[in-house]
């Protein structure tokens, strides 16, 4: 496999797109037989860096060495020939082809084969699966595989191409806890065989469990590199964000008023017997690993995938939620997990995004009052602190943090009784993150029910006074956060409860 001690070395690599400096100078060294984690917030240049290594982008400046040799110009084919394999977040597998064909196809293309040899492909696939300890029917179509198995297909495909460096781009985002564990075993196994591995991730606890070394990127520069032991949480966060860990903790005074009461809420295969009460002032957090049912509770309360049994009481009234329309009727708002596809209309104006869920309110006798919509939007832009020049600007022009504020404004404009936020600050810069948290605290104090579904433990500890931990569809019941530390919460998450 890997012949030299250091497989890949980048020396002050810079990449400019016109005037935009995506990489301002990154130095990185990846050794054979090590697992190197690459962490950084959204927009730090991680994806550009991967594209430079895979040959998709040419570096503007700087030097690249592979196995000690200086490479002047790296093309995608060169990169693959030298043993660099990237597994993208969407895996780039073919849903309509069989497992065997998916695994064998790149190899056939690499060798310039003109014919498709089915028997060979099948053997190659079985061999690759054996190597990493995966078990799949080689004849099954990939569209029928789970996300984790699709990833296995992508890994198999990479290793049969004599990969010496395997780059995994956020490999755990869509995996359940068990699947992450399995993936880690496979990755360690490949490392034992001498392969160099780069994992892009920004979840500290996952990085601790797998990484040998860690490089943190910020604003297109590597701000810290070192053995994993050298990083504690505070240093990690500081390097990642450039700020100290914030210490303000939201712990509201006690109110009697019940806003939401959920009893025995059950949806088979997703969650069972969920019970909680949300009082005025409360910010309720729901957490758990992926596949634990945390997201499904939000989906059920918003009517996307309604619960089968159980009762929901909202402001003292029993309600039934069978569809999104029901949820809207009872003034439940939902800030979805995937802002780009689920939350926003990127090619519409900020105004149209803001009124998307409440357009019926602007119906006058003669039709919709577009002028009023613009006024209201402008007011929201000011109250919520969104950096936008006009209500007519396209949504596309806003940064992640400002866009997320407008998703929240969209729901606030419906005057919600309950607002559910799934991953409210994913991909949001630090400043906006704090703003959003302040907004949520104020809403809670006003008597709007706030639920945060998140896997960002730090966010939960600081912003929720009550927590529910989900595990395999079961709930822990309500936990008062009090002065719980993040380590305690991590312990709870991974324990048997």
């Amino acid at each position, binding site marked *: 496999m890997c012949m030299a001690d250091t497989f890949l070395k980048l020396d002050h690599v810079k990449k400019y797109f016109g005037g935009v400096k995506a990489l301002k100078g990154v130095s990185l060294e990846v050794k054979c037989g090590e697992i190197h984690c690459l962490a950084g917030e959204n927009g730090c240049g991680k994806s550009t860096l991967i594209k430079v290594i895979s040959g998709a982008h040419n570096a503007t400046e700087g030097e690249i060495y592979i196995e000690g040799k200086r490479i002047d110009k790296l093309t995608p084919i060169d990169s693959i020939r030298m043993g660099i394999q990237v597994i993208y977040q969407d895996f780039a597998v073919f849903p309509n082809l069989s497992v065997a064909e998916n695994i064998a196809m790149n190899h056939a293309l690499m060798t310039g084969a003109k014919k498709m040899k089915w028997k060979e492909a099948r053997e190659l696939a079985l061999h690759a699966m054996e190597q990493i300890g995966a078990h799949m029917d080689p004849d099954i179509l990939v569209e029928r595989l789970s996300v984790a198995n699709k990833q296995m297909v992508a890994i198999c495909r990479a290793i049969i191409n004599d990969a010496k460096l395997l780059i995994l781009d956020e490999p755990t985002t869509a995996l359940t806890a068990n699947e992450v564990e399995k993936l880690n075993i496979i990755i360690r196994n490949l490392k034992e065989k001498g392969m160099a591995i780069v994992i892009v991730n920004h979840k500290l606890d996952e990085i601790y469990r797998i990484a040998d070394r860690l490089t943190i990127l910020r604003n297109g520069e590597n701000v810290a590199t070192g053995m994993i032991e050298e990083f504690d949480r505070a240093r990690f966060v500081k390097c990642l964000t450039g700020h100290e860990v914030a210490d303000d903790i939201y712990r509201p005074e006690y109110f009697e008023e019940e806003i939401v009461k959920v009893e025995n809420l059950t949806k088979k295969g997703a969650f069972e017997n969920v019970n909680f009460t949300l009082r005025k002032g409360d910010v309720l957090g729901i957490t758990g690993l992926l596949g634990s049912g945390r997201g499904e509770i939000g989906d059920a309360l918003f009517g996307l995938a309604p619960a089968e049994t159980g009762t929901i009481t909202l402001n003292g009234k029993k309600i039934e939620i069978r569809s999104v329309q029901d949820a*809207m009727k009872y003034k439940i708002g939902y800030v979805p997990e995937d802002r780009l596809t*689920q939350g926003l*209309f990127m090619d*519409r104006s900020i105004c149209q995004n803001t009124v998307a869920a409440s357009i*019926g309110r602007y*119906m006058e006798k003669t*039709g*919709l009052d577009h002028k009023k919509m613009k006024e209201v939007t402008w007011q929201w832009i000011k109250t919520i602190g969104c950096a936008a020049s006009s209500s007519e600007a396209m949504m596309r022009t806003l940064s992640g943090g400002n866009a997320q504020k407008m998703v929240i404004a969209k729901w606030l404009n419906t005057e919600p009784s309950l607002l559910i936020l799934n991953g409210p600050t994913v991909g949001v810069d630090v400043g906006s993150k704090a703003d959003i948290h302040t907004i949520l605290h104020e809403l809670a104090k006003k008597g709007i029910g706030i639920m945060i579904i998140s896997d960002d433990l730090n966010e939960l500890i600081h912003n929720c006074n009550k927590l529910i931990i989900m595990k395999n569809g079961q709930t822990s019941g309500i936990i008062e956060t009090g002065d719980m530390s993040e380590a305690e919460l991590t312990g709870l998450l991974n324990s048997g409860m």
Partner: protein
Amino acid sequence: MEKSKKFFKEADKNTLALFGIALLIFALMGIFAPGSFLGIANLQGMCIQFPEYGILALGMMLAMISGGIDLSLVGIANFSSIIGSIVMIKTGGSGTSILLGIGAALIVGALCGTFNGFLIGYLRIPAMLVTLCGLQLYTGLGLAVTKGPALTGLPESYSLLANGAFFGIPIALLIFIMVFLIVAYILRATVYGQHVLYMGTNDIASKYSGIHNLKITITTYLIGGMLGAVSGILMASHYNSAKADYGSSYTLLTLLIVVLGGTAPEGGKGKVAGVAMAVIVLQLVSSAFNILRVNSFVKTFVWGLLLLAIMIITKVVESKKKE
């Protein structure tokens, strides 16, 4: 002055360009063939023709805004006009029976549209496939009912609808203007109109914003079906008969108009004014061809070229913008 400035600022460039082309054709034809082109007969002739496909184009535009396409409109137009004609003939051909017939045609159009919308929205079959099949299905139904030949014997007074005039203005033109205003109002000033734009832009985000996608899809194709019926009523009145394969060239023509009018085939974008302008431009070109005695088949050729040229230009401009 302020207002007109604002008007030009808000009207998109595409519509303005079309307006310019229309003026240019008027000017050129006014110079070269003033007698025949600007004559009352030609102007009236134009006004009888374009409402038929202009109204279909509005249906196509709605479908495209919603992120789909409706290739079955001509089939719906013919089938509903056939049913309407049968009702008219069976009930005796009086004034009320004409109204009954029109009502029947509108109902049939709405039903066909609902069927399309159901298959697209509920069974989630691609709109292109559903409406391509729908064209075959509705044309087939029309053929099955008429057994092939044109259905004649429609009441005399019925033909006034397309061929008559009201104070010198063709009634067909008045109908077109009315339909045009209604569709413009629906898109601009109703909740449905905004919802369909949202859905066409991003149907997942619209679901997550509490918009009932299935309802919007069905409504869109239902309105499309009714617009098809209106066009069918005009065609039947124009030819004073109903047939399963009238206006078979209109599918391509409406697609051309809609794209020419600045509607995005990927959905979420479309302007009624642009479509109306495109209808007028195409009718002017078509009339000019007739007067210049150009072989009518050249039109098909030119329509195709125009469609491709417009699409290519938009794509090239778009990619330039992105850079």
